[in-house]
């Protein structure tokens, strides 16, 4: 016998609220990792319960034609993260430093120098994106959600997600591109 879909469980939880516990058991670990990647362990640990509490309270609004609740939960998480933008920015910069240090270990001096300049620029570029583009980009690039799921998470038509991602890509390319002769590579 196959286990009930998220939509079925959420449907059941309308009359039998305890059933919603199963949604937590299924997806909490993934959402905790998502929040952790974005805002660090401490914030994520504080938010994961909050995220599911909000989901529980809004469960009537869940569209049962979607089988999985995961994109919907990501969307609630994305909204919660908006209040933690500063922490997110800090974490992103720290990740850039670590990525640069890692690259330095296994590359030639020039490449290492490159990485040291490049990764902080990537972090800044991501930071500089408008909220909606950054969100679409990170759900796609970090969470590896397909377009359709990003669309469900952000409650947007898939075409809008596509154009946001294209804009985000273009902006990153622009921000990462050496301006004039001030190239990323230095001598």
């Amino acid at each position, binding site marked *: 016998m196959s286990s009930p879909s998220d939509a079925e469980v959420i449907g059941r939880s309308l009359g039998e*609220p*305890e059933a*919603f*516990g199963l949604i*937590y*058991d299924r997806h*909490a*670990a993934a959402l*905790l*990792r998502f929040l*952790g*990647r974005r805002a*660090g*362990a401490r914030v*994520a*640990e504080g938010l*994961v*319960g*909050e995220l*599911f*509490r909000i989901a*529980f*309270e809004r469960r009537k609004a869940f569209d049962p034609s979607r089988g999985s609740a995961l994109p919907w939960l990501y969307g609630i998480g994305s909204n919660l993260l908006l209040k933690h933008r500063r922490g997110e920015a800090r*974490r*992103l910069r720290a*990740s*850039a430093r*670590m*990525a640069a240090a890692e690259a330095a270990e296994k590359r030639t001096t020039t490449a290492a120098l490159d990485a040291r300049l*490049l*990764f902080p620029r*990537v*972090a800044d570029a*991501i930071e500089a994106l408008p909220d909606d583009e950054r969100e679409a*980009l*990170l759900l*796609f*690039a*970090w969470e590896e959600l397909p377009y359709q799921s990003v669309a469900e998470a952000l409650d947007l038509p898939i075409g809008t997600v596509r154009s946001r991602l294209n804009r*985000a*890509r273009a902006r*990153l*390319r622009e921000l*990462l591109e050496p301006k004039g002769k001030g190239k990323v590579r230095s001598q």
Partner: protein
Amino acid sequence: MKPVDLARKLRREAAFEPAALDRGKETLMAAIRQEVEPRRRPTIIPQLPYENVGAALSFLERAFGFQVIPASRLEGADGVVHHALVEFGDGVIGIGTQGAHGAISPQSGGIESQYVSVAVADVETHYRRALAAGARIAKEPRDHGSGAHAYEAFDPEGHRWRFVHQRLREVR
């Protein structure tokens, strides 16, 4: 490198405390209880203290036919139950670890300071079930002048329970 691939390089996992998911679930369950509460719970809920809540719950279910309200179960990270609500008919009572709110189990304190009276439809059947589950009987079933038929039993920690059926007085 493509922009998306560059962005991927900055993806970094966080290290969580082992109990992080349990604490999150407790937040959710509290919200669920909140919603379940107004429908099911009476205004006054007595709370009984026990040394071993888990053992008490299973006895109360087995011997007296009470039912644990699943969403009300509070468990520690080690799986030990600290508190739960049990229901019977439209009554609810809390079963909790002694000392948490000052009260102690008769098993520790050596005295009974209250008893709980429970209305049942059929005293004799209830009595036989309790007896079969090993309940210690305090008073055998009997009729009272008031029109009540009742018996009393102790649970494993010495709380006294009275099960009573009140016959309706004839209206003249």
